[in-house]
């Protein structure tokens, strides 16, 4: 199944760094996200875009993971050749990530 069924996300930009925060819809899914949405998987998903390291920060209190991706925005909003120079749409792309099926019904 797709990450989209379990989580929502928002991307932000700062210089050439993009961050994508991923939030479990249900608190019980946080541990599942922790296990399956790793920095390595996020780096692999964005292999064509992100040149730098991906770091993951964990926020169990609000059921969130924050991925910070270095060298991710083609030089940053002021000089990027990308149509989406802020990289704002990257959050939706990350929700396309495949994760193992969860039994229970979600949303």
């Amino acid at each position: 199944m797709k990450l989209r069924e379990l989580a929502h996300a928002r991307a932000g930009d700062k210089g050439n760094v993009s961050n994508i925060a991923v939030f479990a819809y249900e608190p019980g899914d946080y541990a599942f996200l922790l296990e399956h949405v790793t920095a390595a998987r996020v780096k692999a998903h964005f292999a064509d875009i992100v040149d730098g390291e991906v770091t993951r920060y964990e926020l169990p209190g609000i059921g969130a993971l924050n991925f910070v991706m270095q060298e991710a925005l083609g030089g940053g909003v002021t000089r990027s050749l990308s149509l989406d120079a802020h990289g704002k749409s990257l959050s939706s792309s990350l929700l396309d990530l495949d994760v193992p099926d969860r039994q229970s019904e979600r949303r």
Partner: protein
Amino acid sequence: MKTIRIGAGAGFAGDRIEPAVELAEHGRLDYLVFECLAERTIALAQEARLRDPEAGYDPLLADRFQAVLPAAHARGIKIISNMGAANPRGAAKAVARIARDLGLTGLTIAAVEGDDVTTLIDGLDLPLVERRGRVADLAGRIVSANAYMGIGGIVEALGEGADIVLTGRVSDPALFTAPLVFEFGWEPDDWDRLGKGTVIGHLLECGAQVTGGYFADPGYKDVANLARIGFPLAEVMADGSAVLTKVEGSGGAIDLRTCKEQLLYEVHDPAAYYQPDVVADFSGVGFTSVGPDRVAISGGKGHPRTETLKVTIGYRDSFIGEGQISYAGPGARARAELASRIVEERLKLTGVVIDELRLDLIGIDAVHRGAAVGSGPEPAEVRLRVAGRTGSLRDAVRIGNEVESLWLNGPAGGGGATKSAREVIAAASTLIPRELVETRIAYEVA
């Protein structure tokens, strides 16, 4: 117990104005804050001021003040904004004129300056942050350097009785924490309260992004009445606790999900969110629903501020040339791909010097690149976009020309060609000792 009501009238330079008027008229506000300055905006403002010394403040400043000043004046709402951009004093003069034209009197307008450190930075060989190199590497190309100021100037201006405070580069949350510090008398080393204030400011600074804007995903995250989305306001108590809400009857939603998404927006390490006045710690922040469109914030704290201020340097980086053309109907993708190869080869043949070239097929692979290409049937239309970075305007122009000339020299059925070329003022960052930055305040009276 004293409660201060602060509303967010804008989350970026081009933001909508009607929700700000709604807040001023129906929000029972004490303060209305307009956050209108970003990395890109400050560079554009500096360029505008280079062309015209009277310009350089927010292009929508007049529209915004004409719209909200009558209600704000009638209700005694103070206004704080970084719409001063590259010219706070020019902005203050403009607001004074607008007030007089509206027949409003008794207003003190403060212009907070000092963030412009362009002349200072040239002589300092400081390392750049978030990338390799030093400030000296940009010598001769620097057009602007603006330090992220803290709350100091705004608090001082409010203390002098200012009704409206216009700043240049100020950290976004500081626009909101400054009135809290002023109203509640928080100490400058009360790191936990400054941290809590930063949480509140951070949640408010992007306007509708916490009231259901930038959030809706039909079938997954539905938001009611988005067309009439309201902007947020916070009811803040002296201990730094707060409830986030919006004007009753406005569109959109404030709930746990919108608050969570906004909490981490543009944040890196949640335990160390660097601000000029405090290093805020968001790691323990929690949200509780306390009514319809009412969310209580808990758990923010802070650590001592650093001895440096971040400076955004705008510098002449390069030129970008761009051209686009559309192909539609059967074989659209194949024709667009052929066009793409033709342009790439012609740019090489004609010796255009290009540092970086990007060829996008819009509708297939322009936004997510290799990460999320659909597996569906061929698209009915494809737009080719060619964008390249060059060292001269002349070369940048030639990129668009090679795309436009596909009309007569490319595949069948190309249409709607457009082209452009521009200079890029890019941004780099460094850190300077905070004692080098001096706040200056000028006042206008209307």
